[in-house]
């Protein structure tokens, strides 16, 4: 194995001590090393928030865009050059709230990207408001009487849309998480990895201890190809299932469906403006 280094020296990491983000960063680096990914061919795409800062701390290409908007540029990047490994990573507010519409349609589009969502059930950077995944009753500076809306269930939504790969990990479990994220990246098509993660400052309910006590690993008998069984797993809330919930290998990816990549992968940057193109089109205007 070649020595690949994803570390950046002398950086000031803006995450709180004890934050789950540190573990997620470690998991991701290990995954990319294990998969022998050349950092030059990896693009991290993120939105805004504490989780969305992850590309700043890993030595790859990155596109740190707008809040909620990681998935559209990730789609544009992967379509423009399918040779790149594209990872869209942000927090629960970013992906499931602000970017909820993009989340739905990225799944439908089935672009070959890996969508990693740090899910700590609270807004950190804006200081403690509810997130789309906060549980009812969760009291915040805005939701004074506790959250009254039902929580967004990303796994159930993804399974209902027939997503290619749906998994949940807990950032406290390094080994298991590395294996799952690896499979997500290797999956051809859209892959969702929802990462349970405590926020040590603003979420005093869903702590490390809480996640340990309220989650379990799905056993090997689970049929990941069975959508109904997957949906049953996805909607379990008493204890949150961890691992791969659903795999759907039917259907082509977004890039495979693009004519330009039918015969061979053509990175768009390799195409120069060609004056012949307009001449070809003008001919069609003569057809009367």
């Amino acid at each position, binding site marked *: 194995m070649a020595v690949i280094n994803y570390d950046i020296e002398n950086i000031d990491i803006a995450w709180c001590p004890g934050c789950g983000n540190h573990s997620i960063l470690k998991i991701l680096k290990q995954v990319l090393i294990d998969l022998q990914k050349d950092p030059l061919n990896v693009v991290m795409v993120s939105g805004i928030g504490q989780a969305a800062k992850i590309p700043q701390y890993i030595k790859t290409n990155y596109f740190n865009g*707008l809040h909620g908007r990681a998935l559209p*540029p990730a789609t544009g990047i992967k379509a423009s050059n399918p040779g790149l490994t594209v990872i869209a990573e942000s927090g629960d507010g970013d992906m499931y709230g602000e970017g909820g519409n993009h989340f739905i349609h990225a799944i439908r589009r089935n672009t070959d990207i890996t969508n990693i969502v740090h899910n700590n059930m609270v807004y950190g950077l804006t200081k403690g408001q509810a997130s789309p995944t906060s549980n009812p009753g969760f009291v915040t500076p805005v939701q004074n009487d506790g959250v009254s809306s039902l929580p967004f269930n990303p796994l159930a939504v993804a399974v209902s849309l027939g997503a290619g790969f749906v998994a949940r990990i807990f950032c406290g479990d390094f080994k298991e998480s590395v294996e799952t994220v690896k499979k997500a990246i290797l999956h051809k098509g859209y892959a969702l990895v929802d990462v349970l993660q405590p926020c040590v400052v603003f979420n005093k309910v869903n702590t490390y201890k809480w996640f340990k006590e309220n989650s379990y690993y799905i056993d090997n008998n689970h049929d990941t190809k069975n959508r109904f069984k997957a949906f049953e797993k996805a909607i379990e809330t008493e204890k949150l299932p961890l691992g791969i919930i659903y795999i759907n290998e039917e259907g082509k990816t977004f890039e495979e469906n693009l004519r330009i990549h039918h015969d061979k992968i053509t990175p768009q940057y390799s195409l120069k403006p060609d004056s012949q193109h307009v001449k070809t089109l003008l001919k069609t205007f003569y057809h*009367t």
Partner: protein
Amino acid sequence: MRNYEFTDRINIVLCGGAGQGIQTIEVLMTRILKNAGYNVFATKEYMSRVRGGSNSTTITVSSAEGRCFYNNIDLLIPLDQNAVKHLKKRITRETLILADSNIETRHNKILVDFNDIAVKLGNKVYANSVAAGYVLGLFRLDFKVLEEVVSNFFSGKSDEISEKNIKAVRKGYDEALKSDKISVDIARNTSTDNDLLINGSDAVALGAVAGGCNFMSSYPMSPSTGVFTNIAKYSKELPIIAEQAEDEISAINMAIGAWYAGSRAIVSTSGGGFALMTEGLSLAGMIESPLVIHLAQRPAPATGLPTRTEQGDLNFALYGGHGDFPRIILAPGNIEQAFKLSEKAFYYADKYQVPVIILTDQYLVDTYYNVREKDLLPSSENSHFFTETSPGYLRYRITDDGLSPRGIPGFGKGLVMVDSDEHDEAGRITEDLDLRIKMSGKRMKKLDLIKNDLIEPVFTGNKNYKNLIVAWGSNYHAVKNAFETLEPEGTAFLFFEQLYPLHELAGVYLNKAENIIGIENNFTGQFTNLLEHRFRVNIDKRILKYNGLAFSQEEIISRLTEVLI
């Protein structure tokens, strides 16, 4: 009854409900007449609905090149009773109406039983083809010319439909030959045969391809959709990716991602969609991404008049997006300019790493005329401006002119890092406030470079002028034609293809004038205000229109005459 003679120009209007086939007649007639050697101009106005209502198309056939919209109708073919009412402001004492017996009017009318003829052929849906045949018959064209175009047009349909339509056209044609009341004797010019009949949407899309466009993500919205469907159509033949995004927010972010990874991307939208795109516009400004936005204007605020025209989004294009960043705004005045400027937009975007907005409107995108092929050929200035990276590559390296060489991930040995936060030279997030000042300066400095590469405004008229008429966008031909017709003494005409940044020469022209007359399709005179502000001049004479329709030739002539007295 008097005879009607047309020798230089004839203004034909067809009007009916959506679904009555007005569009079909427009296509058939303009193609046939263009191929027969006439200069043809067509524009339409339509309601925001799929069936019913009143939609009309104006087809102007002339010996000279016709490039503007005339209000007054010479020949009207109403396909239903509503049409006459709908067009009452355009019917004059000179107008001749060709219609069925069931259409009542107090105006001059020749009875032609379009419906009866169609019904005899088996279905009243053929009435539009009978009407097309009738009008074409008035030109005394060889029927073979008609037959070829009609059969090609219906080639995708069943044999029966194709055959019935040809028959319908023939019946109408024969009927016209019987008439001796109307004589159309407009000089033909065989060179139009080689011209291309294209509209503004075609021109923007073709110009984009000339500029190397190979990626499009958009969300459909009238009147910008034509450009999107064109590019999607071209993607069948050419290496282009066209994707319908879930909303305009996604469309613009996808396009910026595409540019980042080496594509040359465009988005097409209208006011409301552009509103959703402004966050992305600001992102392009911050990460110094090239971007081309086609903004086809329609009357606003909010949903406004979805299928009508206006020049009301200039301020929005100028000021949309949070923060300070350079941008370029181009506004084609006609189809040739739409091609040229759309191509140029890609050059500007790529070279200066800025968003470029192509500002059109419903009138321009939906207007056709015959264009020479030589005006639709790519210029030679298009090439890539990005660079192959080396280890330690800095996406935002501070340079003397503000431009940092743009790298593409996967092309070279460097990492390409872009950040919507304020960033350092590498592209990493920073809160170093001194660096913030440097980076702001670097971004804005590009404007100085751009200012040496602007398109001059087009000046027409005597250099010793007292009055100066200024216009932009799709009013070009209406104003130019009126100016040439009136030949007003001591008056010149200044037309702008580039609205931002403004060329310094504009100030020289404006400051020489005693009276400036601004002509625009909006309520406040947005461009006139911009000129006042930028060049410290007073422009109190303004010819404005905002009822959702384009200026007609007659209207410009009459309103210009009023202010020039």
